[in-house]
């Protein structure tokens, strides 16, 4: 994805790719479960973005992007983003020293998984005014309300909840996913993973992340990193979709010609390629911006907006070019479409990020 990579990163990238190719089968043949997660821990992937001071490898957004690109290509569906990017990022940015030391080490080791309850029903991608309320009852803090579109909650140990206290101050509160007052309603997601609503009915808070409420602004920084992760995944998925389509057109004949001889189909593939090259470059730029912490919000938002549209275009065209074959669950193209749709819908779709781009002040009104 990146034009120039250090030798170290080239090796990382190659090792990720070769492990997944050998060990992570395509959707039809796939098994889920804790085994993969343990493997990810052993490979160091769960520690990738965790600071070296907290049992991590201290990787940046660029390293995460390399991992994500491969995840996109091999359609990895473990809830990595929730635990290792979002929650690890929040703990790092907002946690106390002790919280960081303990919890990040647990994540790096694959001992505990986490989920992040950010959105709520009916407010789409806005999270600025959470309706989940933290209140004091019988000497303890409890949470009430519903969080929606929570990835990874079904199998998480802990859930971080963004909530307001009665004074309107927002904070990040941790609950035990299996504890009292916590109900997790889970359904399959469009890309064959799981998506949950977390219903909190007086759920006791295990801890609050960090002390100061003002750390809330760090959420946007953590989300920027997560957006780059999603975008890089999309680039990997788009490239794989494209590769399979090129192969298919070269193999398949119709009206006694190879499909790849039809000018209209050739040009369509070119349009796919153009989108991918532009996305790759913009996502790489966003990863560097997040790494450098410079204009990172706008960079991440731009990349997510572009990738959301391009991903759908590329996958839709791949299916069209595969004809009826593209509509079957047996081939991968449909799975790539669904993954790309899910990526678009996660943490703000293209529509949302175009509006956010305006709000971040790039477009004068």
């Amino acid at each position, binding site marked *: 994805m990146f034009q120039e990579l250090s030798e170290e990163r080239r090796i990382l990238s190659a090792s990720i790719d070769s492990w997944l190719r050998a060990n992570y089968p395509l959707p039809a043949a796939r098994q889920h479960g804790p085994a993969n997660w343990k493997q990810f821990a052993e490979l160091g992937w769960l520690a990738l973005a965790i600071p070296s001071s907290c049992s991590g490898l201290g990787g940046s957004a660029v390293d995460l992007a390399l991992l994500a690109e491969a995840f996109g290509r091999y359609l990895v569906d473990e809830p990595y983003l929730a635990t290792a990017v979002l929650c690890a990022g929040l703990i790092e940015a907002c946690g106390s020293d002790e919280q960081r030391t303990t919890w990040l080490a647990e994540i790096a080791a694959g001992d505990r998984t986490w989920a992040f309850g950010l959105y709520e029903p009916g407010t789409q991608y806005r999270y600025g005014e959470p309706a989940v309320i933290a209140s004091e009852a019988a000497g303890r803090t409890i949470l009430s309300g519903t969080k929606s*579109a929570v990835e990874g909650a079904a199998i998480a140990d802990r859930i971080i909840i963004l909530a307001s206290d009665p004074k309107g101050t927002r904070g990040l509160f941790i609950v035990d996913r299996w504890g009292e007052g916590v109900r997790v309603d889970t359904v399959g997601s469009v890309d064959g993973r799981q998506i949950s609503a977390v219903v909190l009915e007086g759920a006791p808070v295990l801890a609050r992340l960090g002390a100061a409420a003002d750390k809330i602004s760090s959420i946007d920084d953590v989300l920027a990193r997560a957006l780059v992760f999603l975008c890089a995944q999309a680039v990997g998925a788009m490239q794989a979709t494209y590769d399979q389509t090129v192969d298919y057109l070269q193999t398949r004949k119709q009206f006694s010609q190879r499909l790849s001889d039809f000018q209209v189909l050739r040009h369509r593939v070119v349009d796919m390629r153009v989108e991918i090259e532009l996305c790759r470059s913009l996502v790489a730029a966003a990863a560097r911006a997040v790494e450098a912490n410079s204009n990172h919000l706008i960079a991440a938002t731009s990349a997510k907006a572009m990738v959301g549209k391009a991903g759908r275009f590329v996958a839709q065209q791949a299916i069209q070019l595969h004809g009826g074959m593209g509509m079957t669950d047996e081939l991968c193209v449909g799975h790539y479409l669904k993954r790309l*749709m899910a990526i678009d819908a996660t943490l703000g779709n293209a529509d949302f990020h175009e509006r956010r781009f305006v709000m971040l002040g790039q477009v004068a009104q």
Partner: protein
Amino acid sequence: MNLLSKPELLEFRAEVRGFLSENLPAELSDRASCHAHLSREDIVAWHKILYRRGWSAPSWPKEFGGPGWSGAQRYIFEEECAAADAPVLSPFGITMVGPVIYTFGTPAQKQAFLPKIVSMDHVWCQGFSEPGSGSDLASLSTRAVSDGDDYVVNGTKIWTSEAHYSDWIFCLVRTDQGAKPQSGITFLLIDLRTPGISVRPIISIDGGHSLNQVFFEDVRVPKGNRIGEENRGWTYAKFLLSYERILTADAARSKRRLARLKEIASSFATGWLLTEAPCVAKRIAALEIEVMALESLTIDTLLKDERGEALAVEPSILKLRGSEVLQRILELTCDVLGPDALAYEHRVLPKGNAAFPTYAAGRVEEYLYRRAATIYGGSSEVQHNIIAKAIFG
């Protein structure tokens, strides 16, 4: 539409609407609005309700059990059924093989098959496509060899919607290997319970099951089930493909899809980012105008057909643009759903949890399943080729 506002048509519309509101079971319209794949029971149940009213074969002449409607009436019927979320009638009997039988069939075939198509005592499916033939239909390779009073059929058909619960299949088979691709083809009607037939389900990208592959291994088909002459099947197939293509724009159903989209968008209008509301409304407006144009061209074309004028490129235009617009509506629906487009169940989403709003049920599934709309029934590329040929020769 102005052309539909004559008093007798307004009356007809009221009659259809009244019938639907009294006879369409709510659980059926619920399922039809949320699911891309209905069961045989549901499809047959609705067909029979219409059958009892004499409306189960909307395009057929009275002689064979149709209502003998005008083009305008057919469109109004479509529109009212769509607005009421009535299940779509299975096209394979009514729109495809039925007209072939009443146009080219023997008296015995007419008697044997037509009443059961109208009543849906037979559920039909279509055996045209084959693995490897794709848009190039004439390259099919399923063989039928004459053996006494029978043909012996070997080969396979694919993308056969509803085959897993159908009774009969109509097939194109090759009876002359030596001839040019189009001239060695025969049109057969095959009872799916004949020994040697097996059906493999194909799960589509939405996770549902409508498609199948059908295998024929030494399947004996009586020659009495052949339509018309041997080796002339391509003629009957062309007739079939050109019959009643005017409603393929699906404008009536797309109007209903737009109405659903508006319901979803409205549900956000208070809590949601208000600045977005006008932009969504404008995108919906652009699509609604396109659907109006499709509807207008559909009606123009129905009337033209009724006047006996030859149709030129209109059916291809309607198929091409109708399927694209349909996909754009469903795509915008997913956009508007935002995070609610993540949750996905082939059954209805959990009710009573606001995190899984009921308006989302079935929308993403429909988007995925209708991804095929620009592929089936002559892909967009094929329609482009057809129109280009009409323009440039």
